[in-house]
């Protein structure tokens, strides 16, 4: 399944490294990355692919919350269909 991982917060050293390491450890493949500073906030979008269809999403979101706290940013992951559904006919 494809999902979009968003990381938003105050810019500092190690955000991309922290997020990428976590994804690598969990065998989540990054397909596309974009990163910008929006309204003064570090804003990163990643399109990722999760091969393990049985992955426990509840646990994954909790782990990302914890990682976000550590890095001082907010990390959210959502399956990509929700964005397509809301913005594309």
């Amino acid at each position, binding site marked *: 399944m494809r999902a979009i991982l968003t990381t938003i917060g105050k810019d500092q050293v190690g955000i991309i490294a922290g997020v990428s390491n976590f994804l690598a450890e969990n065998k989540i493949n990054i397909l596309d990355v974009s990163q910008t500073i929006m309204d003064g906030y570090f804003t990163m979008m990643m*399109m990722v692919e999760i091969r393990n269809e049985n992955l426990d999403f509840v646990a994954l979101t909790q782990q990302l919350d914890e990682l976000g706290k550590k890095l001082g940013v907010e990390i959210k992951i*959502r399956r990509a269909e*929700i*964005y397509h559904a*809301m913005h594309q006919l």
Partner: protein
Amino acid sequence: METEKIIETIHMISDEKLDVRTITMGISLLDCIDSNSERACERIYHKIMTKAKNLVKVGQQLEAEYGIPIINKRISVTPISIVAAACKDHDYFKYAQTLDRAAKDLGVNFIGGFSALVQKGYQSGDLRLIHSLPQVLSETDLVCASVNVGSTRSGINMDAVAQMGKVIKEAAERSFMSNTKMVVFCNAVEDNPFMAGAFHGVGEKDVVINVGVSGPGVVKHALEKVKGEPLDVVAETIKKTAFKVTRMGQLIGSLAAKRLNVPFGIVDLSLAPTPAVGDSVAEILEEIGLETVGTHGTTAALALLNDAVKKGGIMACNHVGGLSGAFIPVSEDAGMIAAAKSGTLNVEKLEAMTAVCSVGLDMIAIPGDTPAETISAMIADEAAIGMINNKTTAVRVLPIKGKKVGDVAEFGGLLGHAPIMAVNSASSAAMISRGGLIPAPIHSFKN
């Protein structure tokens, strides 16, 4: 996917309180009917537990995967007056206890369908169900009830209207929370996912998933960007926003239905407020340009809002149903509460508003000493608006024992709090005591 669109969705969910208000599983209980009520209740419990076994789990999974809050997981069932009519029990409390137990064992938020449809008259089960209402509402926790007293096709059953005034008073005597779980309808719909009025109509499939979306905060935020623009721009902005909100509902609903292996029914295009600031229908009306909701212009603004929500939502999903429109419950909407406290919003204006939106006099706290006949007359007025305008109207008024105008009733959670509002003190008793049937209006004869 453009970054901007992704950010917009994230803002809608995290800052503007976009959510799926409810995933409601409708379950037919027609195959549980038995002349022995013990056996019927056993079958009801078994069927609900089997069909809705994974409802809460699937809801939680979808919340995690799509990052969208699903506030309520609910069940609606066939009106119990029909299911229980074959048994000889004097009251149907046992059936309500069964529903309550199943809802608790499954972990759902509410179960609706302790209902009777009496728009043209009573059948044996209807009377027994209505007699059970005060006990059921005060002694069960999760069971929601509704009674349909009128329809455009059949007129208004004024005997039932008179009786429901008394039932509401008696239920209020037992517990001030009782009436938060009961709605008196005209033109009740059979696929409504929202409580307290949800029941599973006899024309529906055996089991079905219906979804109710919400998002007053998203609409308000979108309107902040078109300040001062003409009202057709306002309508267009609401339409576009409603489209996005509804598409999300359609996606989540169809996924839930697929995972539960149940057909997907309808999306109810609603703007349902919560007591949280920024999640209010009143605030949208004020954003359109009213100093306070309830002032002149409120009905027009609400008519525009209600219509634009439907136009935007209708193309976004396969099947639209339920109540579909803006809800205006007083206690559940921070802006309505403030306007009622300040005196700008009164019951008369709320009644006018119900002529152009999806529901009726909803979650309105009134003085505890309001006569039953006055409550019946309020129901009759609302039913008349629904009957003549071919729309659903509902009454959920809450007489609060020992409280007077200006006091506040606290319900807690999503039900919020409400100032006690004044009702007209002149008597309607002689009209209500006449009983009978108000005939169906001329424009109902369309065949």
